[in-house]
């Protein structure tokens, strides 16, 4: 086992990874931009190296500077968290070339899953169900129109290299297709991908359900239950829970088996997530994409399995033969506490005057900030993740209501009032909701 880990990330996830690194008796090295110097993760690390200006391109996404920080601090391994370099095969390769341990899957696995069209074709070959859609990149509107004659409306239009919901759109007819295609092409150009667009048949009443997998050092792949991430705004997740209240035991079993096959198909090592869309009415699923990193919402899996996923990542990267328990029990829900207004969900950064986290039985808070910190406009709006656990979903919901009421944030705008509203929404409370829930709440 290596003795020190540099965490190439910020905010709540840097803090959460540092906590496990230190609990394992290893030295945790933080890196930070000028905008983040006062955040808890910088203070709590054993060593902290400044990277540069707030702009991510000059700090968290500057590969040379991050690698230099690793050298200067004597770190022997790099944990990328999520976002930033976590799914960047070239960076993973340069970490390995620098003689350091990359805490993540191989650069080859990242590459094969990073291109959504490639990933989709690979999954189809491995016997994982995929939605009817394009097998080669679509580069102009005429091709898109031709493709839809086979796929059928409605279609989801997205960039082959994109993520986080950016550039995604649904089309119900040719006029809508032209608009969605334009939007996706612009997003692809802006975020550096080529003009490669992917079309897939769109499921009207879909749930977003994903399976957590771990590729172990002995080559086997195991599944650690699923997470339902159907509460979304702008195609981005707000609330996640495990188990999913919207799938049968039989469907769960099929999904977990398919996710294991997906991981085996790429020789997957470490923590990964196989994202699927479930047709809530037909109880059928299709592969959406695979995320080759730790997910934001990993705590719900930790709460129902008792497994520390970051510890597993570290042990697997060190070559240890681990065998984590995969059985789940109870029910966990995570609420993303965003710095945004609770009506329109527009960003609302600002200085934090009051920050009081709830605590108590079955409550876990992973936060990146505390009173006196400033939430800046440079990074994503996630301030904290409020997680609850209960023996049943009803108990988890009740604990969530108390915990949301007990969480006080003053300064930045925040979506805690939305979380409270959701916890009284009959669709959400009943469990029979889909990805259109938040839009319906704001219609």
């Amino acid at each position, binding site marked *: 086992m290596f003795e020190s880990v540099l965490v190439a990330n910020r905010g709540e996830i840097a803090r959460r990874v540092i906590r496990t690194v230190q609990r394992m008796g290893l030295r945790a090295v933080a890196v930070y931009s000028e905008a983040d110097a006062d955040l808890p993760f910088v203070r709590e690390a054993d060593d902290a190296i400044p990277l540069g200006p707030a702009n991510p391109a000059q700090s968290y996404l500057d590969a040379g500077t991050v690698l230099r920080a690793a050298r200067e601090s004597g770190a022997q391994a790099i944990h990328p968290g999520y976002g930033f370099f976590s799914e960047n095969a070239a960076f993973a390769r340069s970490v390995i070339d620098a003689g350091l341990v990359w805490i993540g899957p191989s650069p080859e696995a990242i590459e094969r899953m990073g291109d959504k069209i490639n990933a989709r074709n690979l999954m189809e070959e491995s016997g994982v169900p995929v939605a009817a859609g394009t097998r080669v990149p679509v580069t102009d509107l005429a091709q898109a129109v031709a493709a839809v004659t086979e796929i059928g409306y409605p279609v989801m239009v997205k960039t082959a290299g994109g993520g*986080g919901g950016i550039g995604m759109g649904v089309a119900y007819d040719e006029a809508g297709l032209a608009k969605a295609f334009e939007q996706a092409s612009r997003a692809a150009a802006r975020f550096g991908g080529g003009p490669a667009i992917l079309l897939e048949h769109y499921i009207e009443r879909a749930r977003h359900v994903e399976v957590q997998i771990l590729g172990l050092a002995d080559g086997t792949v195991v599944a650690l239950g699923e997470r339902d991430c159907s509460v979304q705004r702008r195609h981005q997740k707000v609330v996640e829970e495990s188990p999913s209240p919207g799938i049968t035991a039989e469907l769960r079993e099929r999904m977990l088996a398919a996710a294991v096959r997906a991981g085996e198909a790429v020789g997957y090592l470490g923590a990964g997530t196989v994202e699927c869309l479930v047709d809530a009415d037909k109880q059928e699923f299709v592969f959406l994409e695979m995320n080759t990193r730790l997910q934001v919402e990993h705590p719900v899996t930790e709460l129902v399995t008792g497994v520390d996923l970051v510890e597993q990542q570290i042990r697997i990267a060190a070559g240890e033969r681990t065998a984590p328990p995969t059985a789940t029990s109870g029910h966990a829900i995570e609420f993303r506490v965003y*710095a*945004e207004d609770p009506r329109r969900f*527009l*960003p*609302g*950064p*600002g200085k934090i005057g009051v920050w009081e986290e709830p605590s108590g039985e079955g409550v876990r808070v992973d936060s990146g900030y505390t009173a006196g910190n400033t939430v*800046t*406009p*440079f*990074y*994503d*709006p996630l301030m904290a993740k409020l997680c609850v656990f209960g023996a049943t979903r009803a108990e988890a919901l009740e604990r969530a209501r108390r915990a949301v009421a007990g969480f006080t944030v003053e300064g930045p705008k925040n979506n805690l009032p939305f979380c409270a509203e959701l916890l009284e929404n009959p669709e959400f409370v009943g469990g029979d909701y889909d990805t259109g829930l938040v839009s319906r709440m704001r219609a």
Partner: protein
Amino acid sequence: MAEVHAEMVANVWKVLVAEGDAVEDGDTLVILESMKMEIPVIAEDDGVIAKLLVAEGDVIQEGHLIAVIE
């Protein structure tokens, strides 16, 4: 005369108009970026850009005056 203010703390990502340009109600003047989200700033009146008070790369605070349309 209409003043256009920022609704939130943001970075100025793109400036699409210059002083002296004629604009119409609904035109995008500036695109702000905050917390990985693009926020277009829209003209709410027809007129001419009399003053433009931001440049690409600026960090502006909530309420910051972006432009004056006459």
